[in-house]
């Protein structure tokens, strides 16, 4: 029992306790790490359990962020309402946009999903709507840093355990079937598009929540909500943390985001260092941190028994 509980408790306590010992600046960093963790979790879920490599992170963040921000700016709804609304409506919208592409697989789906945030940016600039290139500022922010911090950390933990459970439920099994062999799933009388749509919706919920949260975190919405970072960093976090482990990507995001902040002193060189670290991981630990630790942990247990 303790054997199973220990790693989980370690993770939960780690996420809940660490923020108490760092200063305001790093607390903010943890907040954005939380957003990336949600995206990475969604990416890992789609890629490893539904066979969809989705680079739609920026689409999710942008849609969620804009919906929450606009509701707050034009209708003066409080964050308590805008965040849930933006999460669901944003996820529904981004899923609808992606449905026609669900017939594509692998890299083709990835590229198409990568395109949509670029589209959105051009549409907003061209039509000069939703604040255009300036964005909209002076949105409501959270009353305290503690609320900011623990809201996102709670969201990360809840969605992590929810998705871990989901992948072993019937729906998760069917999705894994789609990933392994979609034709066989069709031969078993199940519509693969229906299940892929649901999977994308779930990942979009995570991303859109992150987006809505982000626009209230800074009290500002703008084109940078559609930034490529939101699509790319989750992949890096997933590679680093361990693909398919679900916990790994979350861990990866909580390592990479602060690391990226710490490297800020190097200016533009930051990206190069960042890439070097990633390459090192791919070469020396391609299985990722989490899969490695899990293997070692199980070995350790056996060794003790003998």
């Amino acid at each position, binding site marked *: 029992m303790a054997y199973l509980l220990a790693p989980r408790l370690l993770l939960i306590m780690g996420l809940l306790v660490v923020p108490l010992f760092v200063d305001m600046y790093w607390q903010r960093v943890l907040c954005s790490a939380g957003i990336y963790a949600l995206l990475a979790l969604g990416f890992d879920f789609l890629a490893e359990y539904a066979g969809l490599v989705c680079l739609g992170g920026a689409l999710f963040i942008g849609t969620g962020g804009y919906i929450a921000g606009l509701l707050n700016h034009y209708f003066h709804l409080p964050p308590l309402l805008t965040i849930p609304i933006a999460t669901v409506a944003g996820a529904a919208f981004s899923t609808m946009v992606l449905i026609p592409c669900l017939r594509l697989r692998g890299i083709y789906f990835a590229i198409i999903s990568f395109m949509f945030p670029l589209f959105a940016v051009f549409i907003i600039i061209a039509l000069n709507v939703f604040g255009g290139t300036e964005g909209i500022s002076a949105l409501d922010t959270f009353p305290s840093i503690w609320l900011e911090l623990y809201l996102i950390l709670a969201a990360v933990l809840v969605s992590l355990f929810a998705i871990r459970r989901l992948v072993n439920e*019937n729906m998760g*099994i*069917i999705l*894994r*079937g789609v*990933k*392994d*062999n979609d*034709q*066989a*799933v*069709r*031969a*078993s*009388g*199940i*519509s*693969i598009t229906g299940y892929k749509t649901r999977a994308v919706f779930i990942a979009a919920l995570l991303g859109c929540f992150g987006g809505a949260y982000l626009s209230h975190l800074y009290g500002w919405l703008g084109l940078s909500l559609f930034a490529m970072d939101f699509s790319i960093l989750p992949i890096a976090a997933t590679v680093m943390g361990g693909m398919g482990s679900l916990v790994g990507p979350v861990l990866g995001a909580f390592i990479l985001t602060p690391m990226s902040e710490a490297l800020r002193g190097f200016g533009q060189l930051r990206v190069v260092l960042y890439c070097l670290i990633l390459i090192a991981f791919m070469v020396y630990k391609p299985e990722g941190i989490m899969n490695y630790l899990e293997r070692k942990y199980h070995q350790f247990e056996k060794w003790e028994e003998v």
Partner: protein
Amino acid sequence: MAGDSILQVKKLSKSFGGVQAIMNVSFELAKGQILGVIGPNGSGKTTLVNLITGFVKPDKGEVLFNGKDITALAPHKIANLGLTRTFQVMRPYHSLSAFKNLIVPLNSPRVKRSAAGKLGDMDAVAIDILEEVGFERDARVPYKVAGSLPLGYLKRLELGRCIAMRPELIICDEVFSGLSMSEITSLIPLLERLRMEGITMIMIEHRLRELFRLADKVVVLTFGQKIAEGLAEEVMNNQMVKEAYLGTETKA
């Protein structure tokens, strides 16, 4: 007569680019029968399966299942009507354990409807079905990851996935190929039992001796055309069939 027939294939044609894969093929199949489809490599047998099950859409012709036109239906809708298939190149969900492979068909609308919410523990049902197709429960084979199973079990798994659908018609695309003699002899009773249960079957096969023990009727394809249809002995004595398999005799 039309009342008995479960499947009617009418003048089916399909070409891929310049290759005429299936040309004007028609046949009918009565409920409870086993139909063998034979023919040399590349004669269009698997294409025929794909056309009937909706994975490939025909250029011309139609397929009636229980009198209903299913030519334009999506594969999963056809499967839900009770027409299932195995794949020649096996398609297990290799990252799932064997019994979890059956969770997918057990979640199909067809099974849920016919069980009316009384399916009980799905895992237990899945393991029962696997035992039925020859997975030894005691040896814990059903719990092994499908990707690690040997060929014989994968073939059985394919059949198990079909049976889980509670089908009326199963199309077996070369279930015997690649199996050893003893594995084949252990599969035959299973197929006979399915027939006893009233399930109609189409068997695409290269193993003629074993097929003829089971089949009520045989259809022979060459270059996408049906060249013979009838009882096994009749068909094998047919001059055109001999030529298709052995080539034309040339007199020196």
